């Protein structure tokens, strides 16, 4: 952990054109204050890699509305009509990836793997442009690793050195993207002294976290 940052300072460190892994599932587990700060500094040309683009007014949906995003890599945009409209208007490029494949590609990137073989998407439009590899008579798609300039994490608890916990369905992509961002910034609902999170409760070790977002 390198230090705690005000949201504005964190947003300043994320240049236009950056690629961002963002936690959350329909906004649940998304670091909202970090998103607000990116909107406030009028970030532009971002690539967002996330499960979905939430809906207008929430989480990643705010970045979409603000025109901050040039490209999304995601499994679902169906609940955000603005993403769909901007895609059709050519303002946002959308790469659709099956949800299980997306999280494995991110895990591969973070775990130093060169990719994984999955049966998902075989024989569908997802197969287009991908290598098919046969193993013991079964065919699989080779899916390649994903990493990004930043991972933006929404956590439940953080201690002062960045050990994180997550609550219920707010885990989702967060523990995995913590492995795959070159700079990892986490926003927690509660901050705690070192030692207050038992070792077995830590879901993301602090050594992966570069910055915590200061409480508002």
């Amino acid at each position, binding site marked *: 952990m390198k230090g705690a940052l005000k949201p504005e300072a964190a947003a300043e460190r994320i240049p236009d054109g950056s690629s961002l892994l963002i936690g959350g599932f329909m906004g*649940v*587990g998304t670091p909202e204050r970090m998103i607000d700060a990116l909107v406030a500094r009028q970030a532009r040309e971002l690539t967002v890699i996330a499960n979905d683009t939430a809906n207008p007014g929430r989480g990643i949906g705010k970045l979409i509305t603000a025109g901050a995003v040039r490209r999304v890599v995601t499994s679902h945009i169906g609940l955000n009509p603005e993403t769909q409209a901007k895609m059709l208007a050519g303002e946002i490029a959308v790469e659709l990836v099956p949800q299980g*494949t997306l999280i494995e590609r991110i895990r591969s990137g973070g775990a130093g793997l060169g990719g994984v073989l999955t*049966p*998902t998407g075989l024989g569908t439009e997802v197969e287009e442009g991908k290598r098919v590899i046969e193993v013991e008579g079964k065919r699989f798609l080779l899916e390649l690793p994903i990493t990004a300039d930043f991972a933006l994490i929404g956590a439940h608890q953080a201690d002062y050195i960045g050990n994180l916990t997550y609550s219920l369905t707010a885990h989702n992509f967060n523990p995995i993207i913590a492995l795959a961002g070159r700079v990892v910034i986490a926003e927690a609902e509660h901050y705690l002294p070192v030692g207050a999170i038992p070792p077995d409760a830590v879901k993301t070790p602090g050594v992966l976290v570069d910055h915590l977002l200061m409480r508002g």
Partner: protein
Amino acid sequence: MNAKELIARRIAREIAPGALVNLGIGLPSLVARYVPAERGVFFQAENGVIGLGGLPPEGLENPSLTDAGAGFVALVPGAASIDSAMSFALIRGGHVDATVLGGLQVDEAGHLANWMVPGKMVPGMGGAMDLATGAARVIVGMQHSAKGESKIVRRCTLPLTTLRRVDLVVTELAVIEPTDAGLVLRERAPGVSVEAVLAETEAALVVPDEVPEMVLA
């Protein structure tokens, strides 16, 4: 009883005691209503929870506890929260005993199309491709026809969700099982004749000597 309720009540009978089950959003989510609690079924949502348990009391919702459709939920005792990598390890790895998915088309090969209509609806596949490929049993729950056209077709014209053959299709008219020999008409809805099912179906159906009426949960 409307079509959706009938479909949900029939599918509920497919859910085995103690099973791990993933219900898609929309029609499939209704199935949970008709599975008795005593059956010990665990409902999974792909956003990362095992043990969904209906709606929370009003005013006691937790913003960090939602289903895959982003609605507030409660949990049963013994529930577990997991991350997305574990959630899809369970799904793709065959640990989910059954998934119930909506459908746009199912064809004679048992192929399912349910994730996009080119030029019209491009929501993204979400977890549907993983579920349809990896769950131990794939049950499609959908209305038999849409806008006057049969959704049980000779060959899917919409983009496929998976090459894997689905295990069962339940509509408000019939229960159809895709097999090596083609689509077998297993059951007809109460009061619906075999002829009526055939008339509403584009695909060829294999009709056994006996086609009993559905029993509903």
